[in-house]
C-alpha cells in the first residue's frame, strides 16, 4: 500500500518487533539446551521441542529432566545451601540487586524470547512481565537486606523445589526465585514444558549476577520431571499451576514435612454495579480476560453485571471486543496473541462448544491469522450459575456473564465457586466498594481496576485456589521457618483401666459434646471411662463420631460470618471474660488436671489464663498493612479470619494446649471445632461451662472429644472446613495433609514434634499467621 492509500484507509500497518537478538541467542546455544545445574549447563540429554505457538515453528530442543537429573540438581542446591544461607542478608541483597539490574539490561531480549516461546503480545512481555520480574528482584533485594533485623528467629528451609506454569514463565520464575534466595534458600526450578526458554536465559544471567554455583538450578521437562522434583529431597515445594496438579502435590508431599505453597486456578468474579463508570469497567475487562489470551489464573473470567445496566454494558463490551486486534504476538500493535499450545486451543474450543449453547455466544468480529494457535475473544451472556462454563476455569479468552439484582446477591454469586483467587468490583460508591471487598472470598480484590500486581503486595488465594502468598513480607514468610525444631513426641495413651477401679468421688458428672453453644449427647451413644493415674474413675468422656463432627462444622459455619464481622474489641472482651471465669474456677481446674495427669495443675491453669490474656490482647491488634505500591491509591493487606478451623489439641497439656489452640483461632475471628486431648479430655469438657458463662456466641467454639485419628480424618476431609491443625501426639500429619487435599484446606501439623506450650512457642506469630489470611485490596483513587 502506498501512503495515499493508507491516508484514505487509515489502517494499522505491521509493526513487528525484531526477533534477531533472541534467535541469535538460541543459535549460540545450538538451539539445544541441557539443564542448568551447579552453575553450568549440562549436555543435552533426551530432548523435546519447544515451539512458537504463533507459527508452530520449533524454537529449540530442551532436555527432558529425569529423576536422576533432578537429584543431581537438588544435590547441587544442597551443597550450595550452607554457605549461601550463612552469607548474610546483605550479600544476598547484592546478588538480587544485580539480578534485577540484569533483567533490565537484557529487558528486550527477555521480552522477545518470552513472546516467541509463549505467544503473548510483545507489549505485555515488554511492559508488564519483564518490568514486574525486575521489580520483584529489586523488592526482594530489600527484603534480604532487612530480613535479619525484622524477622529474628526465622531460618530458611533449605532447598526449594519450584514448579511454575507457562502463562507467565519469567514472572513466575521471579516470584519463586526472588523470595527463595532472599530468605537464604537455594532452589531447583522446573519451568513449564511449553515455555522453558526465558528460564534458561535467566540461568545465564545468574552467572553474570554472581549467583554462586548451585544456588539457582533449572531443570527442564514435563509433568513427570515436576513430579520428580516434588518427590526429591527438597525442603519446600512451591507450585503455581492447575488445581488438579496442586491437589496431587498436596497428596504427594503429605507427611513429608516439606513446606508447601500452592497458587492454583480461579474463576474470579468481575462485579459491575449500576453506578460504575461502565466504559472504564469495559476497558477493565480487556485487562482482565483478554490479557495474556485469558490464560491468567486470576483472570476476571466471570462477569456479574447488575441487571439494570446489563444490556447496555454487554453492548459496550461487544463493541470493544470487536476493536481488539488479534494476531502476530511480536507485532507491537496487537492486543491478543497466540494461545500457548494446540492442546490448550483444543481445550478452549471444546469447552465453548460444549457449554456455549447454554447462553448466547459472541465471538469478536476480528480476523484471525491463518495459522498458529489463535482463539477469538469471546463473550457468553445469559448463563446461570449452574452452567458448566460459570463454574469451570476455561483458561482462555472467554468471558462468561450473568446478572444480579442486589449487592447481597452479587456477593452470593461471586462466592458461589470452589475457587477464591481474585475478585474485581466496579462502583463509584465508596461505601459499597468497601463493604463488598471484605465479603468476597478471595485473596485479592481490585476496586475499579483489575490485574494490578506488585512485589510489595501479597498475591494468592483461598479455598481451592491454593494457599500461601507471594509478594510482600507475607510472601517471604513462606520461605522461612522458625529456627526451633521441637522434640519428637511420644504418643500419649490414656490411663489404662486398673484391674479394679474405684467409683468417682461425689455426684456423677456428665461430660458431653459441645456443639453450637449447647451440650449434646454424642451421636454414637458411647462414652469412655477416664481413669486417674492412681486408678480412680474420674468420669466418662463422650466418644464423638463423624456425625458429631458434621454437626459441629455446621454450627461453626453458621456462626462464622457473624463472628468474623464482630469487632476485635468484642472478641477481646470475651476472651478476657473467659480468663476471668477460668480464674474464678482455677482451683477446680487445677484439681482436675492433677486428677487427670497426676501432676500439679496450678501452673497450667495460670498459664492458660495468661494465654487467654495474650489472645484477648491480640484480638484488636493484629493490624493489616498499607502497601507501598507504585500507584496512586492504596493496596491494603487486610487480615481476615481463615474461616472454620478444625483442630486436634495437644495431648500433653490438656487445658493449656486446648486454650492455646482455641484462643488464637477465635481471637482472629475464626470459629472452631476442637478435638481435645485424647487421653485427658475432661479438662476441655469442663471448660465449656466456662465458655457458657463468658458470652461466647454459640457455634464459635465446638468441642468434640474422641479419637484423634478418626475425628482428624473427618475434619481434614470435610469440604466445609477451611483449615485443619494437628498437635496430636499421635503422628497423624501425613493423613491430615493427604485428606486436606480434597478442598485444599490449609493445614498446620506438628509432624510428630512437640512444642513447649507454656513457653513463648505456645503463642505468637506462627499462631497469628495460621489463624488469618491476608487479603490484598487494591483501591486506586483520584478524581
Amino acid at each position, binding site marked *: *500500500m*502506498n*501512503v*495515499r*492509500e*493508507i*491516508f484514505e484507509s*487509515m*489502517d*494499522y*500497518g*505491521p*509493526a513487528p518487533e525484531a526477533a534477531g537478538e533472541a534467535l541469535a541467542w538460541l543459535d549460540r546455544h545450538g538451539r539445544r539446551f541441557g539443564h542448568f545445574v551447579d552453575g553450568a549447563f549440562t549436555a543435552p540429554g533426551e530432548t523435546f521441542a519447544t515451539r512458537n505457538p504463533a507459527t508452530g515453528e520449533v524454537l529449540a530442543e530442551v532436555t527432558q529432566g529425569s529423576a536422576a537429573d533432578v537429584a543431581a540438581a537438588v544435590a547441587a542446591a544442597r551443597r550450595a545451601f550452607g554457605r549461601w544461607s550463612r552469607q548474610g542478608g546483605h550479600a544476598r541483597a547484592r546478588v538480587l540487586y544485580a539480578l534485577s539490574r540484569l533483567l533490565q539490561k537484557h529487558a528486550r531480549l527477555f521480552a522477545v524470547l518470552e513472546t516467541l516461546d509463549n505467544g503473548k503480545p510483545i*507489549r505485555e512481555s*515488554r*511492559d508488564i512481565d519483564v518490568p514486574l520480574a525486575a521489580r520483584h528482584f529489586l523488592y526482594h533485594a530489600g527484603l534480604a537486606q532487612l530480613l535479619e533485623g525484622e524477622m529474628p528467629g526465622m531460618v530458611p528451609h533449605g532447598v526449594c523445589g519450584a514448579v511454575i506454569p507457562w502463562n507467565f514463565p519469567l514472572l513466575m520464575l521471579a516470584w519463586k526465585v526472588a523470595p527463595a534466595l532472599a530468605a537464604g534458600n537455594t532452589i531447583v526450578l522446573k519451568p513449564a514444558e511449553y515455555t522453558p526458554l526465558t528460564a534458561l536465559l535467566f540461568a545465564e544471567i545468574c552467572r553474570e549476577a554472581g549467583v554462586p554455583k548451585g544456588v539457582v538450578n533449572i531443570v527442564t521437562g514435563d509433568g513427570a520431571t515436576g513430579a520428580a522434583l516434588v518427590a526429591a529431597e527438597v525442603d519446600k515445594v512451591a507450585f503455581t499451576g492447575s488445581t488438579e496438579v496442586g491437589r496431587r502435590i498436596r497428596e504427594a508431599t503429605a507427611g513429608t514435612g516439606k513446606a508447601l505453597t500452592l497458587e492454583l486456578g480461579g474463576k474470579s468474579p468481575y462485579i459491575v454495579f449500576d*453506578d*460504575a*463508570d*461502565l*466504559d*472504564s*469497567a469495559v*476497558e*477493565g475487562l480487556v485487562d482482565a480476560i483478554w490479557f495474556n489470551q485469558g490464560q491468567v489464573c486470576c483472570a476476571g473470567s466471570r462477569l456479574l453485571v447488575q441487571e439494570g445496566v446489563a444490556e447496555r454494558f454487554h*453492548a459496550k463490551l461487544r463493541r470493544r471486543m470487536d*476493536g481488539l486486534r488479534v494476531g502476530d504476538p511480536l507485532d*507491537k*500493535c496487537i*492486543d491478543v496473541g497466540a494461545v500457548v499450545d494446540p492442546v490448550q486451543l483444543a481445550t478452549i474450543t471444546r469447552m465453548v462448544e460444549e457449554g456455549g449453547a447454554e447462553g448466547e455466544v459472541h465471538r469478536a468480529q476480528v480476523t484471525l491469522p491463518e495459522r498458529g494457535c489463535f482463539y477469538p475473544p469471546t463473550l457468553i451472556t445469559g448463563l446461570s450459575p449452574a452452567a458448566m462454563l460459570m463454574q469451570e476455569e476455561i483458561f482462555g479468552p472467554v468471558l462468561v456473564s450473568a446478572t444480579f439484582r442486589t449487592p447481597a446477591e452479587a456477593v452470593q454469586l461471586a462466592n458461589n465457586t470452589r475457587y477464591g483467587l481474585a475478585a474485581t468490583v466496579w462502583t*463509584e460508591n465508596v461505601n459499597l466498594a468497601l463493604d463488598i471487598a471484605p465479603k468476597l472470598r478471595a485473596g485479592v480484590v481490585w476496586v*475499579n*481496576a483489575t490485574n494490578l500486581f506488585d512485589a510489595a503486595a501479597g498475591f494468592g488465594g483461598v479455598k481451592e485456589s491454593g494457599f500461601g502468598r507471594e509478594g510482600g513480607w507475607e510472601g517471604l514468610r513462606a520461605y522461612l521457618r522458625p529456627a526451633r525444631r521441637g522434640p519428637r513426641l511420644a504418643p500419649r495413651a490414656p490411663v489404662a483401666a486398673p484391674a479394679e477401679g474405684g467409683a468417682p468421688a461425689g455426684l456423677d458428672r456428665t461430660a458431653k459434646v459441645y456443639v453450637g453453644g449447647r451440650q449434646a449427647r454424642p451421636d454414637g451413644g458411647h462414652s469412655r471411662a477416664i481413669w486417674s493415674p492412681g486408678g480412680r474413675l474420674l468420669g466418662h468422656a463422650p466418644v464423638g463420631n463423624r456425625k458429631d463432627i458434621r454437626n459441629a462444622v455446621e454450627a461453626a459455619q453458621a456462626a462464622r460470618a457473624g463472628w468474623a464481622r464482630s469487632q476485635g474489641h468484642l472478641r477481646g472482651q470475651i476472651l478476657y471474660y473467659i480468663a476471668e471465669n477460668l480464674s474464678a474456677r482455677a482451683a477446680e481446674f487445677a484439681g482436675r488436671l492433677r486428677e487427670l495427669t497426676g501432676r500439679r495443675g496450678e501452673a497450667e491453669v495460670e498459664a492458660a489464663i495468661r494465654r487467654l490474656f495474650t489472645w484477648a490482647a491480640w484480638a484488636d491488634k493484629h493490624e493489616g498493612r498499607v502497601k507501598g505500591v507504585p500507584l*496512586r*491509591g492504596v493496596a491494603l493487606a487486610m487480615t481476615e479470619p481463615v474461616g472454620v478451623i478444625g483442630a486436634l489439641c495437644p495431648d500433653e497439656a490438656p487445658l493449656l494446649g486446648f486454650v492455646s489452640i482455641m484462643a488464637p483461632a477465635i481471637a482472629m475471628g475464626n470459629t472452631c471445632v476442637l478435638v481435645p486431648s485424647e487421653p485427658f479430655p475432661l479438662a476441655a469438657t469442663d471448660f465449656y461451662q466456662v465458655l457458657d458463662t463468658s458470652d461466647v456466641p454459640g457455634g464459635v467454639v465446638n468441642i468434640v472429644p474422641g479419637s484423634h485419628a478418626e475425628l482428624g480424618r473427618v475434619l481434614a476431609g470435610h469440604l466445609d472446613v477451611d483449615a485443619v491443625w494437628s498437635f496430636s501426639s499421635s503422628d497423624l500429619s501425613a493423613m491430615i495433609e493427604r485428606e486436606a487435599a480434597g478442598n485444599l484446606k490449609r493445614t498446620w501439623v506438628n509432624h510428630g514434634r512437640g512444642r513447649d506450650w507454656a513457653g513463648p512457642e505456645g503463642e505468637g506469630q506462627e499462631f497469628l499467621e495460621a489463624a488469618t489470611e491476608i487479603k490484598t485490596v487494591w483501591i*486506586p*483513587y*483520584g*478524581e
Partner: protein
Amino acid sequence: MDTSTKTPAAAAAAAAHLPQVGHPRNAGMELDLDWVAAVQANTSAIERRCATLPGRRTVKKEWQAAWLCRAISLIDLTTLAGDDTEGRVRRLCAKARRPVRADLLAALGMEGLTVAAVCVYHEMVAPAVAALRGTGIPVAAVSTGFPAGLSPFRLRLAEIGESLRAGAQEIDIVISRRHVLTGNWQALYDEMRAFREACGAAHVKAILATGELGTLRNVARASLVCMMAGADFIKTSTGKEAVNATLPVSLTMVRAIRDYHERTGFRVGYKPAGGIAKAKDALVYLSLMKDELGDRWLRPDLFRFGASSLLGDIERQLEHFVTGRYSSAERHPLA
C-alpha cells in the same frame, strides 16, 4: 435579537465548506438531567487506559507517514496571540495552503494536502478569509468572549454574528465554566443553545476549558450537556488554561461522544487543543479516535487538532521518512 442573521454570501460560503456533509448535523435534544446525573468518570481507570494506549498502538514506515499526513489534514492551524497582525495571519494562511514542502509531498504522493482550517481571533477573520480565498480552507473564529467567556452575554452573542459576517465558517465558542462548577446544567444548556442558534449554518465548536472544570466527571457532564444543546464539536481548551488537551480528558470526552451517538444517532466531532506539539502525540490521538469511536472520526468533519507547533514536528518526521535522515526545523518553511 436575531444574532443568526448573516449575509447570503457568507451563508453560501459556509454551505460550500460545511464540515459535516456526510452525516446529519447534531440537532441536539431536550436537556436530560437524569442522563447527566448518571454520568460517571473514574479518573484512575481512565488514566490507566491512557497510559497503556501508546504502548498498545503504533504505526511504522508508510503507515506512519500516511497517518502523519492525515494528522496534517486535521489541523486547525491556529494563531491566537495579542500581537497577531494581518501580515502574520497571511503567513499562517500561506502555510495552511502548503503545509509541507512540495518536494516532500511529491515524494509521498500527497500533493494537494492542506490543513483543515485556520483558527484566529475575530479581528483576523477577514484577512484570513482573503488569504484563503479559492482554497476551500475554512476560517474558524474563536468567539463569545474568548478565552474567559465573561463578557456580557449580549455581546458574546453579537460577536458570533460579527465573525460570521466577516466570513468565518466555523465558530469556536467558550462555555461559562461557572455553570459547570456550580452544577447549573440548565444554564449551560441554555447558553449553548443560544450560541448554536447564533451560529446558524456555521458549525459550532464548544470549548469546555477542561483545565478549569476540576474533575473528569465534570468534563463528561459538560460534554454531554453541550451536545444536547446542539454543539457540532466539543473541544477541550482555549490553549490559555494552565492545563490543555490531555489524553484522559480526551478519552472522557470521546466516550461522551460515543454515548451520545449510541443514544441519539448524531455524530459530534472532537477537537483537542493546546499542548499537542509532537508528531508522536498526534499519532496517539489518532489511535484513540480510531479505537474508541471508529474510522469515521478520522476525517476533518469529525476531528480536528487545535495546534500551532504540531505541524513543524510532523514536517521533520515526514522528511525523515522520505530521506532516511533526521531533519532540521530550519529546512521547513515557517508559518
